């Protein structure tokens, strides 16, 4: 064990029995905090007939009711505006607003205090240190700094580590590549789609071989690509750099990371988060490796709007093998495998078929049936939407409204195909209107109507 490889050599190599004690005590602390300060949490636990004093052992944790994203939306309709009654601090303590992308419905607002932001960047510090970021690095971040959390905390963490950060906010792709070249940037953070897109632009539009630039490591987030071996290889070959995966979410925090050993999975930061895996059918908590389930997660130190037993709907499984890096933090095999409710990420944005359905069926000139096909054109995600025009309705009268509404509700662009009414498949029981052809095991051939 080389202590210099760890951000916190004590926590990251702590024996598992001690780690479990740490998690339990921190869980009790955040539970008490929420119970005494948040009307929402108090009501949730009172309704279940529980108080924090009833949680006496690690096994008792599963008695605590889960929180669903849909519940957070309801909370926001209450005072104080705009966060609602899960807020645990006075409104004047909130220093930062973020929101989810809203592709599954109304966006969820996330308040953070300055301490929470210190915590966010602390969690990212574990990630970046494990991936080899050091003070000598010059980190280029080609991210449109905005209301989405994305790489904000990565920026702060890189600064904390002592790296030099170059914010590549409003630059276009070619300008970003030129800036990387000009400054000899050594590291980069972006979605896998954009990493590949940048490589494509550099090579095919600018005559620059990105593998000859100075980037030697890339941290990915927002999409599963860095956990998919073939996509990771494409990125690493294109840039001549190591590509690392990471997973986080606005409501949760940055909870897992791939280390420099690249073990085909991600470590859960078990000093800062408690991850439980729940069987999708029975709801039992899965302890053993090799069984997929839905992640239930607690951020153990997030204070303004606590995240306690949040039903993330991410599908994961524990890896049976320990990592050769020496961390005692468990690995999730292959990273986040998917979403339990069929929500998927396209171009780094969560896409819900239900959100598209809502748009299609809100437009009078369209039929009930539709089909969504997500695939890749080259290395870039593409969404094809097939819709039917009702008899007598023209494409011209519909197309712009549909595109505008889709963009508004899902933050994504679509290739839209119009068909005569009655052309698309009909279903008797359950419909299969969503096809993600990017998935490795998707064998069904696309059928022409």
């Amino acid at each position, binding site marked *: 064990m080389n202590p210099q490889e760890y951000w916190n050599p004590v926590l990251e190599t702590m024996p598992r029995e001690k780690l479990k004690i740490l998690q339990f005590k921190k869980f009790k602390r955040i539970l008490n905090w929420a119970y005494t300060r948040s009307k929402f949490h108090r009501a949730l636990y009172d309704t279940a007939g529980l108080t924090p004093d009833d949680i006496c052992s690690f096994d008792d944790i599963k008695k605590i009711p889960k929180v669903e994203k849909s519940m957070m939306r309801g909370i926001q309709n209450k005072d104080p505006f705009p966060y609602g009654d899960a807020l645990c601090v006075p409104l004047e303590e909130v220093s930062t607003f973020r929101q989810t992308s809203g592709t599954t419905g109304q966006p969820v607002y996330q308040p953070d205090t300055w301490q929470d932001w210190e915590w966010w960047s602390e969690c990212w510090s574990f990630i970046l240190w494990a991936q080899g970021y050091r003070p000598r690095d010059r980190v280029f971040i080609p991210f449109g700094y905005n209301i989405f959390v994305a790489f904000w905390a990565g920026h702060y963490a890189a600064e904390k580590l002592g790296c030099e950060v170059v914010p590549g906010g409003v630059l276009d792709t070619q300008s970003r590549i030129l800036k990387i070249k000009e400054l000899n940037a050594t590291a980069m953070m972006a979605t896998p789609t954009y990493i590949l897109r940048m490589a494509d632009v550099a090579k095919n539009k600018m005559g620059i071989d990105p593998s000859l630039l100075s980037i030697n490591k890339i941290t990915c987030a927002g999409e599963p690509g860095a956990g998919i071996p073939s996509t990771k290889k494409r990125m690493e070959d294109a840039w001549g750099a190591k590509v690392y995966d990471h997973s986080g979410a606005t409501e949760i925090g940055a909870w897992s990371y791939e280390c420099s050993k690249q073990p085909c999975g991600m470590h859960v930061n078990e*000093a800062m988060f408690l991850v439980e895996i729940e069987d999708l059918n029975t709801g039992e908590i899965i302890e053993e490796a090799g069984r997929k389930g839905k992640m239930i997660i607690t951020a153990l130190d997030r204070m303004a709007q606590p995240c306690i037993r949040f039903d993330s709907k991410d599908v994961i499984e524990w890896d049976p093998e320990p990592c050769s890096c020496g961390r005692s933090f468990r690995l999730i095999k292959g990273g986040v495998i998917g979403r339990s409710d069929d929500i998927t990420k396209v171009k780094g944005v969560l896409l819900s078929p239900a959100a598209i359905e809502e748009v299609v069926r809100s437009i009078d000139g369209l039929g009930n049936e539709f089909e969504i096909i997500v695939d890749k054109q080259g290395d870039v995600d593409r969404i094809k939407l097939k819709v039917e025009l009702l008899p007598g309705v023209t494409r011209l009268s519909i197309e712009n409204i549909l595109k505008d509404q889709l963009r508004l509700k899902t933050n994504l662009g679509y290739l839209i195909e119009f068909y005569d009414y009655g052309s698309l498949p009909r279903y008797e029981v359950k419909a299969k209107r969503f096809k993600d052809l990017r998935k490795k095991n998707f064998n069904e051939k696309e059928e022409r109507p």
Partner: protein
Amino acid sequence: MKNFSNLKGVNDKILKIKQLLLELEAEATQFPALEKNSKRALASIKMLELNISDIVVFDLADS
């Protein structure tokens, strides 16, 4: 790695800094620069508590 094996000693220092900052913050009425910078520093101290103090307080350090 002297500090690595003396987490209790490190924690004592963290608590001293925290106490001083809390006193500064309390004395900062009508002095925003003192109050807000003390508060920011306390947020950083909290990260030291998460990294070090919790291990000591929860009695998880190697003896």
